């Protein structure tokens, strides 16, 4: 009955509208499916007015003064229609939009903080898609990224691992989760092994300083891990995985392997869509954890995403993510337990206004807690270190877009509180305010320029201005030149400024330096890329980033270590990549990276891998029932870092690590339409290096997944 009344009302509205010359009405459908398309841009370039279609694909434009008019219908992923309309049109206008052949085209958000097709983004963005993630066989983001050329994992001097991206320590690369910095770092770095691949939809990588949009830490680039779910149907997805390293298998057989269980659930309810994801992982006596004297690791994540479409102009999104980790290690002398809890909540309101204005307001609350306890088996408590971080943020983003330009501007304010037994007074707090703007202009469909600027004010301790300029020149429809220049910075961490910790065992003291200045970077990228929508993408990028004021620890006085800004360095390199869909069944992707990183004396920076190649080859056969993918990575010989006991500094080793290859094979068998069984063999060649990694030799995983789609929306 409701639908009938709506139909009558709509019809009357249309009839009334058509009798009025100053109004035009119409509707937009998908040419292939015939279904209405909502939020399609309807624009009159001469009159500079426009609107978007409603949920039924209908639109009305009022206040038209003269005819004929030029009308433009555009929608992401579809061919744009340009049409002249005269006043004699009495029927509602009908537009059938044709989908672009976008097999290899993705929407990206990181380079501009608004959705763009990757080929159209003025700043070059690399995407690791969900399909790439599935075919990689990786359990977490650290494993996923380390399969890529130009990325490596090194052992950290303070425990755990350091991810080097393009030869840069990961603390100079901003790691975002859904566009927001991750609260809770260990040794000033995000622990990427705490982000399980099961919960993410894609990863975007932007090279070059990007502090003009994101502020601190985006000195060398940005990695944005996106969990966005776009389920439009009720869906239950279950996956289970069992893995075992060769080492472990020989020692303990099946019982001490690693297991992972994932469950995701999506439920659309009229204007509401719920997505819930649960993932539990247990790692036992795996080499990766034994390296750090841990016997067992348990990780549980619970994520939820609720989208509520209030009306055509207003949407509300609530997102939560809870991560819990428990590490246990036991020996005759010490029982070690580490508990990590990270809880993120965000509430966003997105509203659209006339003339292409969009406003997005968000409130974010992130809490992190890490409790490290060491207890003797006979009951004596040796260590009880509790570190907690609280981050409360409000941000407002304004976006105005039309055919030739786009404006993004925003304001962020947050309060961050850090408390730890290892810092002065036990607790420190900063309030940061940031203002940023970015203007993107298209000139004659040939040139796309971007100007960005951000101002950060950290509790009046630091004030940093970060600009960025970008240019994309469309040489032909397929070939593009992209170049960008930007400045980045990293604000000193709470630990670097306020640590006050005495290492009882070795009798030295670490003192923070509250006068540290932010580390700064200044970098350019320039490159060409070729993109053919259907089957081929190729890019060549040169990047050069100059770092100054880098923070380094030093010996302040006898038995006292501290931090100071002394170090400068340059990071440069070429990256060549190609993604090629040879046929419906065969796909390949490869990346070649050359890196040349130098310190201020022009000496090579330790741990820089000068040359690495990664490739991915995927083939479907037997009517897509079998899918097999091979990931390979070859790392050229490089010189690692070693400690010089005479000078108590880290130096470039004289001895090179020989080149090595890592090969992972994943084969998936589709048992039924939505039931998959996969066998993954990691590090087939069983290459290990106990000092510098990789630490885990050959490993095998068996994975089962099924998707139960019960009802269309």
């Amino acid at each position, binding site marked *: 009955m409701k639908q009938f009344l709506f139909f009558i009302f709509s019809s009357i509205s249309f009839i009334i509208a058509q009798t009025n010359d100053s109004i035009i009405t119409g509707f937009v459908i998908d040419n292939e499916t015939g279904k209405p398309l909502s939020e399609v841009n309807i624009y009159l370039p001469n009159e500079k007015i426009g609107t978007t279609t409603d949920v039924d694909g209908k639109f009305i434009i009022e206040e038209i003064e003269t005819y004929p008019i030029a009308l433009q219908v555009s929608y992401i992923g579809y061919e744009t229609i340009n049409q002249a309309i005269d006043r004699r049109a009495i029927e509602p206008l009908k537009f059938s939009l044709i989908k672009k052949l976008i097999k290899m085209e993705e929407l990206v958000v990181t380079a501009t903080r608004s959705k763009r097709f990757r080929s159209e983004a003025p700043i070059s963005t690399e995407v690791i898609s969900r399909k790439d993630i599935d075919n990689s066989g990786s359990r977490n983001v650290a494993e996923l990224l380390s399969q890529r050329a130009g990325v490596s994992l090194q052992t950290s*001097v*303070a425990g755990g691992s350091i991810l080097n991206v393009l030869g840069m320590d990961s603390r100079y690369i901003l790691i975002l989760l859904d566009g927001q910095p991750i609260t809770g770092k260990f040794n000033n770095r995000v622990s990427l092994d705490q982000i399980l691949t099961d919960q993410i939809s894609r990863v975007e990588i932007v090279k070059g300083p990007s502090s003009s949009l994101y502020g601190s830490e985006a000195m060398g680039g940005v990695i944005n891990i996106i969990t966005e779910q776009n389920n439009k149907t009720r869906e239950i997805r279950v996956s289970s995985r069992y893995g075992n390293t060769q080492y472990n298998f020989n020692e303990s057989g099946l019982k001490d392997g690693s297991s992972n269980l994932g469950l995701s659930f999506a439920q659309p309810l009229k204007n509401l869509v719920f997505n819930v994801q649960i993932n539990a992982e247990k790692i036992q006596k795996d080499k990766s954890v034994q390296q750090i004297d841990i016997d067992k690791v348990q990780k549980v994540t619970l994520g939820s995403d609720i989208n509520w479409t209030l009306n055509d102009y207003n949407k509300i999104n609530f997102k939560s993510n809870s991560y819990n980790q428990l590490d246990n290690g036991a020996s*005759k*002398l010490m029982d070690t337990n580490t508990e990590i809890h990270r809880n993120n909540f965000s509430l966003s309101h997105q509203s659209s206004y006339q003339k292409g204005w969009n406003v997005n307001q968000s409130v974010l609350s992130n809490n992190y807690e890490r409790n490290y306890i060491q207890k003797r088996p006979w009951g004596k408590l040796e260590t009880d270190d509790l570190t907690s971080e609280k981050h409360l943020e409000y941000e407002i983003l304004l976006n105005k877009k039309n055919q030739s330009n786009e404006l993004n501007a925003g304001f962020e304010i947050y309060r961050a509180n850090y408390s730890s037994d290892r810092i002065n007074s036990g607790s420190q707090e900063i309030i940061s305010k940031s203002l940023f703007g970015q203007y993107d202009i298209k000139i004659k469909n040939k040139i796309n320029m971007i100007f960005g600027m951000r101002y950060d004010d950290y509790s009046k301790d630091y004030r940093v201005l970060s600009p960025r300029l970008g240019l994309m020149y469309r040489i032909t429809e397929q070939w593009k030149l992209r170049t960008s220049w930007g400045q980045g910075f990293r604000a000193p961490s709470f630990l670097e400024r306020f640590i006050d910790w005495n290492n009882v*065992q*070795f009798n030295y003291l670490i003192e923070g330096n509250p006068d540290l200045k932010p580390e700064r970077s200044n970098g350019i990228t320039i490159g060409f890329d070729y993109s053919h929508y259907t089957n081929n993408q190729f890019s060549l990028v040169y990047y050069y980033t100059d770092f100054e004021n880098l923070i380094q620890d030093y010996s302040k006085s*006898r038995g006292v270590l501290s931090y100071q800004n002394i170090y400068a360095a340059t990071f440069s390199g070429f990256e060549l990549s190609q993604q090629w869909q040879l046929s419906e069944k065969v796909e390949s992707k490869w990346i070649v990276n050359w890196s040349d990183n130098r310190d201020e004396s022009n000496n090579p920076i330790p741990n820089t891998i000068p040359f690495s190649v990664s490739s991915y080859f995927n083939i479907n056969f037997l009517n897509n029932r079998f899918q097999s993918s091979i990931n390979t990575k070859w790392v050229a010989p490089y010189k690692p870092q070693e*400690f010089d006991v005479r000078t*108590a500094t880290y130096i470039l080793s004289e001895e090179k690590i020989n080149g090595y290859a890592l090969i992972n094979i994943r084969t998936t068998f589709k048992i039924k339409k939505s039931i998959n069984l996969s066998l993954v063999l990691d590090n087939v060649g069983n290459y290990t290096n106990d000092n510098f990694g990789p630490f885990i030799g050959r490993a095998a995983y068996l994975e089962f997944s099924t998707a139960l789609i019960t009802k269309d929306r």
Partner: protein
Amino acid sequence: MSQVYRIISMIMILFLISCEDQADKNKAMIMNEITTDNVADGAYYFNLDSGVKDNASWHLVFQNIDVPFGGQQYKMPSFGLSASSMLAIDSSSDFESIETSPSPNAFAPEGGRMVYGGSHAALTYDMAVHKVGVSNYTYIIYDTVTHKVFKVHFDEYSGGIVIFRYAELAAS
């Protein structure tokens, strides 16, 4: 009847002999596991013969020593031997399988080999992960006063405390 007594006597003798052999063997291979005190509380002296902590008569000492590091001195945990002990290093055999003493000319004064920074240091410091670890060598210690020989293996170091195992070896 005397035949029966004779057989019983022989069985008894054989039993006693076998018990005696076994007892000797067990005595030679009694494995002791020792957990030291925390080195941060002061030096720890241990007598392998008596199997007790003994500040006056000892073979092994566990203490913090000054180690030069980048032009400065830092305290690092270290093991050492008494002046009346001599040392041989076995890096190839499994600790459990060593049952007899090596030949006398295998022994030499400790000479700093076992202490921190020595060629066969019992405790090492891994710069990569900032962690103290134990070596996997077997230390054969000869007491020049009692002429007894002991094998020692360091199993674990954690927060200033060490677990080590030792046993007395039969003469070669």
